[in-house]
Every structure is written in structure tokens, then in C-alpha cells.
């Protein structure tokens, strides 16, 4: 009922098979330097391992250094915050008053004002060349940016 298809042999393959000699002379293989090759490979492997270990050790050492630096930064920040609080406590008017009393100072009486008969520099009279105005920010030295 059905025809079986047989593969047709191509003429080209037939030609190659016909032209190829049955036997040919194979040149003698060059002697390989097995020992040298093994040494190179061992050296390469050792170098790679040593490099990886060295890099890892260096990275670990840097990690230790980084931790030390972070600890120093944290310690510095802690000390700075404490000093800010200490300075503020020392500047407290109540503490200064107590310290002054302990030193023997007495509270001043009510302030008195004098009306000067002629202007002094503090009253607006300018002597010499006035300095240029400097924009000052009294808050700047102690604010967040410098924490």
C-alpha cells in the first residue's frame, strides 16, 4: 500500500569516499612537557587562591578598620552632644547667679540710665571709616548642620 522511500546516496559523498586513501602516514606527535604544564596550572591555581585569600583578608582588615572608625565617629558625636549640653548648663543664668553669689558678688540694684550731654560713638557718632556690615546668624554655630 505504501512505498518505502530509500535515501538516495548523494553523488558528492560517493566521490569523497572513492578519492580518500585507505591508509596515510600520521606524523609523530610532538612530545608534551607535562611537568611544566602541571606546574603552570598549580601556580595559577595557587596564585588565584592566594589572591582570593589575600583580598578577603584585606577586606576583613578594612572592615575592622571601618568598624573602628565608626566607633570613633560615634564616640565623637556622643562627646560633642555631651559638651553642647554641658556648655548650655554652664551658661544657665541660674547657675551663673549662684556661682557669682558664692564668689561674694551681690545682686545689682535697679538699672539707672544717664542722659549724656554730647554724643559718644556708641550713640551713633562714627569715628573713622565704618566697617562693612556683616550678616551674622547667631544660631548658626550650634545648629543641626554641625552636629
Amino acid at each position, binding site marked *: 500500500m505504501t512505498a518505502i522511500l530509500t535515501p538516495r546516496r548523494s553523488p558528492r559523498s560517493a566521490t569523497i569516499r572513492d578519492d580518500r586513501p585507505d591508509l596515510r602516514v600520521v606524523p609523530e606527535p610532538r612530545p608534551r612537557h607535562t611537568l611544566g604544564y602541571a606546574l603552570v596550572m598549580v601556580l595559577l591555581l595557587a596564585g588565584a587562591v592566594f589572591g582570593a585569600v589575600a583580598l578577603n583578608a584585606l577586606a576583613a582588615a578594612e572592615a575592622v578598620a571601618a568598624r573602628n572608625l565608626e566607633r570613633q565617629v560615634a564616640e565623637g558625636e556622643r562627646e560633642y552632644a555631651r559638651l*553642647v549640653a554641658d556648655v548650655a548648663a554652664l551658661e*544657665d543664668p541660674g547657675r551663673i547667679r549662684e556661682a557669682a553669689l558664692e564668689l561674694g558678688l551681690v545682686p545689682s540694684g535697679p538699672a539707672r540710665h544717664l542722659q549724656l550731654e554730647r554724643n559718644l560713638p556708641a550713640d551713633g557718632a562714627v569715628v573713622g571709616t565704618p566697617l562693612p556690615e556683616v550678616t551674622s546668624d547667631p544660631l548658626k554655630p550650634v545648629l543641626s548642620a554641625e552636629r
Partner: protein
Amino acid sequence: MTEQPRRRRFTRAPRILTRTGEQLAVRRIRWLLVIYGLVLLLVLGQLVNIQVVQADDYADRSVRQRERVIELPATRGRIYDRDGDVLATSIEGATIYADPRGFRPSETADGTPVPAAADPVEVANELAPLLGRDVDDVLERLQRDAHFVYLGRQLDHEVGQQIQALGYPGIGVLAEPKRVYPGGGLAAQVLGFTGIDGDGLQGLEAQYDTILRGRPGALFLERAPGGLDIAPGVRELTPSQVGTDLVLPLDRDIQHAAEMAAAGAVERFDARSATVIAMEVATGEILAMASTPGFDPNRRVSGDEDAWRNRAITDVFEPGSTQKAFTVAAALEEGLVTPTTPFEVRDRIRVHSSTFTDSHPHPDSTWTVSEIIERSSNVGTIQIAQELGEQRLEAYLRGFGLGRTTGLGFPAESPGLLMPHEDWWGTSLPTISIGHGVAVTLLQLASGYTTLANDGSAITPSMVRGTVGSDGRLSPSPRSTSQRVVSRDTATQMQQMLIDAVSGDAGTGALAAVPGYSVGGKTGTARKPDPAGGYSDRYVASFAGFAPAHDPQIVVAVMVDEPYPIWGGVVAAPVFAEVMEAALIARRVPPDGASPTLAEALERARDLAREREEAEAGAADEDPLGIPVDDPASPPAGDPAEG
């Protein structure tokens, strides 16, 4: 039983005999391959199980073994006064904890006994003085059936270092932020305080908690079991955000002066409490807000909660005569009276079913409106209020800020008490017009006087000048809104009347005078309501005023609770003068009063020196050393410098 071996022999013998050695080897190899295949399948199955089926689970386990997430707590923002002086800041404290399991003998899982790491009694004896606790308390904590107990929180950093140096197993030290208030009790009721976990609980710390607290960060890193970081591992830092700083309009020096003056008044007049507010007229900024008795937020103890309240904002009182300025200003604004309008004033007046009297009996007199204020006449003020009427009086009082909160937003701020005029009864008009039957906070009273000093424009009080972000620059708060209550003319006329109340011959506020400055203000003395009904025999003394009177810069209001003597002009006015003087000097306000010339001052100084020499000569006759024994400037006994 006996046939079975024979049958086995019958079936197996031919098969063995038919196999050659080569076939046997092949068969064995095939079996081995099958076994290897099974093992390989097992390995592959497990590989698939680990790498595919349970990959996420194993990955999580792996990460959990080496990952460390370190929470980086946010530093809470600082609070500064107007000059950048620190009022509240955070430092690093030490929190001490213990694992009580280490202080009792135990057993491992295989039953090996494990002795206690240390003797809890010895540890308690050693730690208790450092922790500031009783030995029994520390011992009880070390013997609890728990894995973790606090022994002390937010102690000094040095204490933590000392405890760490002791090296007790089971005792650990954690760094924890600690809120400190360098000024101690300075402005304590205004600043408030934070709880042990850093949450704002009171005052501005609570009101601005969300912006002060900042945002905590986290450091994600991979760490080997020994504790060293894995250098090539993941390291992700989410830095914490420092809380925003607050800059207050408070002036530390004025605040200190106000607290000193309030404390002095409480001590001198045996008062229950005293409250002082200083405000800047042009901006409504609060320069000082002091309440006595106070407390130190660094060392809060239970039992003094009453001192935590910012009484200037939370407590109300009947303003008494200080409110007469508002009543008269309303009548001036309505054109019903002028400062020179005369009134026939007797020393008593009957309204509805009650009789109202002046503080002192006096003959029937013809006083102008200005004189009524100067003499603080109840009767005269009631007569003016009767012309004004209930509706207009209530409207103006509300305009001056009574009966509503000031807009400051401070926690627990009281709106005071001012009933709608529809609910007033027969005696309400005369009562309220002289400052009774109405309750105000001291801040409301100060705001009302700021309106008069600000040429009739009410300005919202301000407690925060601005915020300081991470760039270190000040972001000013929105400017306070203002609203006109009375005209500039009315305010000017009222200012002059209040100047007369201080410097006039019959003025009740003479003790409020500040040398070198003109001062305007009004005294107040009011009975306190009795909780059982009616009025008690206890009083509130008050004074509110401004200076320099002709160009008001600063308003100061004072309230002294239950003093003796009771009079506002005697008790509150000197406190006003003390605080006002400090505020004027601190704010560098030039004097506007008549100051002596240099020659006159030198002459006075010479006179004073002469008088002092004469006095010392007289004292020397009585005391051979010539040094009073209680002179604080005297050298102490045994001082080497003395010899």
C-alpha cells in the same frame, strides 16, 4: 517445611549454571548503575527540593544566620531660645540590662549541670550603688524568672562604662538617647518633657513631638558568627533623620528673671503660686512664661505633677480690675465716653438685687473716665458698662480674646469662661465689667493688653519662632495674624489712662514703675470663687501693663495666687516692674523717661558715697572690724588672704 529447599534447588540451579562470567559482570554493573542512578536521583531530588521547592525558605534561613539589622535611633531635635541657647537636647545614656537565667544553676539539654555564672548577691551589691538603686531591688530583678530585665535606663554614659568594665556575665549595656534640659527648671512648664522611650509627654515636647522625634534609620549588614562584618557581604545603610530643631521666642535671661521674680513673690507674700508672661508687642512672641512652683524635668519625681502644668495657659482666674481696661476701651470705641467724660461716682451702687462697692469708702465724687481707671473704681466702671450694654460688652471682651483659646495650640490650653450674653442674669453686666463672673488665663490677659499696646490690633501669640532643619538654617514660622479690635485713637487714649494708673497721684500701680521708662498698666485684686458656691476669702492679685508706654515694646502680665497682702498693686506690681526692667534691658529698648545728665548723676553718686562713708563710720564705732558679720562679701574665717 521439608519440601521447600528441594523446590528452590530445582528452580535456581539451572539459572546459575547457565550464566557465564561476562554476563555476571554485566549484570552487576547494571545493578550498580541502577543504585548509582537511584542515589543520583535522590541527590537531584534533594537538590531540586532545596534549590527550587524550598529555595525561599533556605535563602531566608541563610540570610537570618548572617544578617544583622542594627536600628539607628534618631536624635531628637533640640530646642533653642531666640538667641540659639540650648534649652533641651539629647545625649547618649547607658541602659543596663540583665539576663537572670545566668544567675541561677541550670542544666543543658543532655542533663549536664551548668553552674550560675555569678553570685547574684555579690553582683547586686556591686551594681546597686552604680545604678542608684537599693541592693534588694537589684537582687529581686536578678532573681526574676525572665530572660531580660532592665536594671537601669538612661543612666550616665560613664556609669555604663564602669559596669561594662566589671565584666559580669549576663549583664549588658545598651546605648540609649537621653533627653536633658541644661537649664534644669528653666522654662520647664513650657518645654515639658519626654518619657523614658523618648516620646513627648508634656509641653512643647508633646505639642511638637512629630517634628522633634525624627525618623530612626537602620544598618543592614552581614556578619560572621565571630562578630566581624563580612566585608564583601551586603551592607545597606538607611540613615536616621535627625529631628527638626525648634527655635522659641523665649529669651533665656528674661525667662530667668521672670522665674526669679515669681519665686520671690511666692516666698515674700506666702502665696500659693505665681505666674508671669512677657510678650513682644509687635510680633506677639512670648519672651518669657514662668510658673512657680516649678520642677526640674531632669529629675522628675512622682507627686509633683501639679508643678508640671503651664499655669499661664492651663489655669484660669477672675481677672478683677485688670479687665476694666477692656470695658472702658469698648465704651470709648463705641463713642459713649471720652477720657474726660465725668461721672458722678458714689462708693456703692445697687444693681438688680446686689450692691457693688469700691474697695475703699469715699465721698460722692465727680470723676472722669480716666480717673475711674486711675482709682480703679468698681462703681464708675459699672456705670460705664451700663451705658455699653450686655451685647456690646460681650462682643468686645471676645474681641480682646476672652472666652476662646489664643491659637497657640499648647496642650491643655484653657479657653477661659465667658458666657454668652443671652445667658447673663441681672448682676452679670456689673459683675463681668469689673472682671468677676468671667475667667481668663494669664495668656489671654496678656494678649488683651498686647492688643491695647499694639494700637488696637489683636495679634496671635507665638511660642515658636521657627524650625531648623538639617541645613542648619532657620525656617521662620508663619507670621502671627492680627485683627483690629479697637481703633488706634481708642488704644492711644486707653494707653494714656493706663499710664495714669501707674504714675498718677491716685494710681494704684505706682509700684510697677520702672526707672527710666514710662509704664502703663492696671492692677487687679479679685476674690477667688468658692467651690461650694459664692466667693471665698482668698484672693488673686494681678497686674498687666506695657512699656515704654509711649511706644510699647513689651507687655508683662503677672498673677499671684492667694498672697498676703492681697492687693495687686502691692503684690503683683513689683513683680511686673522687676520682669519688665529685665526684659527692657535684655531687648535693648532705650529708656524714654527723664534720665539725669551725667553731671547730675555724678553729684548724686558723690552724695551717696558721702552718706555711705558716714554710715560706715558710725558702724565702725559699733563693730571694731568694720565688717558686718552677714556681709556676703566678707572674707570667710581662716581665709589665708586675710593674714
